[in-house]
């Protein structure tokens, strides 16, 4: 087998990462923070904590809606989001003086702990990491493409890194980190060691990142990955010129979904936005690898009929990938413990972009020093020749 041209592969390794190392590092750091953004919110904002000293069971979603409607009689509830059991539920609504508001409702006690009028730390970190806050032009964002491009760069750096690091697997068996042989040796060891130990993580991040790139292209080309929820029949006209109460309440709609899928837990419930709209009820089931919206059903408020149903059982390949990418990318596949593991791996790869740059920088300095010495030597030789002549 022909030996690889290490010099060329080394150059390729540099081309993959060096030109964008600062952006790459930023994306890695923001991603690392985004992984634990729910926990940071819990730590920093007491109103976000779903304290449950009396060990009560969580109130049904419809009851949380009623609690907010009672507190804000002129409010229109849009949706309800549920997160981890230690975080409050978010009831999103509009009101006369709130064009957009999020009520933090403790799902155990029913207390409204905060009304947030704007950006949450969780959404901010996700947006900063995923599209660098670049604006969305309906179905694409330059920032989203830019971040997705990092997946290609990461994959390139991973493959070239494995080629140039001969017998890299030895780092698993005999990890080496030399502290007393100079700064350069330490940084090089750290770069290699981090790379080998986060190989699996780099692979997961680049593969899920490549999926996000494919997804971005699908969105941009207006090719749907998930079908649109069909409209439902509108209720008959009334004599009093007022909308009739829906035949099926929100809680009944959620119960219909639960009857179909016993393990279903709602995580995102959207109320109808017009009179041909349905209750859109999303949630998780007992599928470990799927995200919190793996079950997506729509229930007709007039008849109780399920008019749309997308679950892990009837998803096609692309839909399945779309629903398993996020838990893998953001590390919530196994709850808090995998988040902690992802957080540390995130720090490792953020650090690798810095150590990679420092290695290149020290090489440049060495080359510059060598050139300077060479020029000085040549000058000395020339002066010597002049003296002789």
């Amino acid at each position, binding site marked *: 087998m022909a030996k690889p041209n290490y010099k060329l592969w080394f150059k390729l390794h540099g081309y993959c990462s060096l030109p964008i190392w600062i952006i790459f590092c930023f994306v890695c750091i923001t991603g690392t923070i985004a992984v634990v953004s729910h926990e940071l919110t819990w730590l920093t904002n007491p109103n976000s904590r779903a304290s449950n000293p009396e060990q009560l069971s969580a109130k049904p979603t419809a009851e949380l809606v009623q609690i907010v409607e009672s507190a804000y009689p002129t409010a229109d509830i849009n949706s309800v989001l549920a997160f981890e059991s230690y975080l409050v539920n978010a009831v999103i609504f509009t009101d006369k003086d709130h064009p957009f508001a999020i009520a933090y409702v403790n799902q155990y006690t029913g207390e409204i702990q905060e009304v947030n009028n704007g950006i949450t730390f969780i959404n901010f970190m996700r947006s900063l990491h995923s599209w660098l*806050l670049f604006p969305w032009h309906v179905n694409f964002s330059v920032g989203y493409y830019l971040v997705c491009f990092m997946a290609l760069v990461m994959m390139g750096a991973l493959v070239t890194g494995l080629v140039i690091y001969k017998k890299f697997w030895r780092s698993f068996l005999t990890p080496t980190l030399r502290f007393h042989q100079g700064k350069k040796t330490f940084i090089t060891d750290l770069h290699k060691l981090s790379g080998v130990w986060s190989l699996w993580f780099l692979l997961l991040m680049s593969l899920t990142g490549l999926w996000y790139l494919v997804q971005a292209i699908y969105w941009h080309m207006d090719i749907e990955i998930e079908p649109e929820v069909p409209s439902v029949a509108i209720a008959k006209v009334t004599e009093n010129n007022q909308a009739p109460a829906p035949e099926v309440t929100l809680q009944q709609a959620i119960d219909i979904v639960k009857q179909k899928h016993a393990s279903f837990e709602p995580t995102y419930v959207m109320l109808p936005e017009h009179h041909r709209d349905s209750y859109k009820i999303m949630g998780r089931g007992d599928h470990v690898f799927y995200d919190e919206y793996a079950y997506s059903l729509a229930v007709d408020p007039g008849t109780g009929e399920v008019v749309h149903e997308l679950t892990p059982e009837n998803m096609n390949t692309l839909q399945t990938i779309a629903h398993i990418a996020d838990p893998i990318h953001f590390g919530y596949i196994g709850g808090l413990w995998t988040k902690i593991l992802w957080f540390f791996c995130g720090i490792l790869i953020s650090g690798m972009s810095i150590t990679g740059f420092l290695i290149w920088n020290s090489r440049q300095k060495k080359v510059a020093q060598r050139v300077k010495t060479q020029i000085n030597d040549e000058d000395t030789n020339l002066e010597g020749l002049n003296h002789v002549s």
Partner: protein
Amino acid sequence: MLANFITKHKFNLSGLVLILPFVFFYQSLTPEFPPMWDKRVLGPFEVTIMPYNLDQPYSHHGVNVKDFMLFFNQDQVQTIRQAYVNIGSSALPVSEFHKFHEGILHGSRHGKEVHALAPEVITKQDQLWLTIENWQGETFLTSWPIPDSITQ
């Protein structure tokens, strides 16, 4: 001098892109929208309308649409059974709107929005048509001329 600087910092220059998130964050906190169009009265409804931007329509699920925000007099909005918006030479009949997911007014009492059905390119001949049906089955229709800033 400049060439030396660029050579020395060639791998750091891409980091300048990271100034943009700060700019975009500021812009998101201070959004600017096109001006609202004149108020229209149709039956009991008083409506003002505002496009989200001055761009031409975009394709959404294979249908050309343009997004608008509509503001109603609060007490009457509850009587809307269904309301639709389209851009063209005439208003589409309600039965035609039923073929699409787009074009229907949605949102809350405090602000409605619509992905108005539109041609691929909006011209000076086009108008924006709003059709409202109340819960008693009465239909109301109004239209706005499209400002030159949007037409081609």
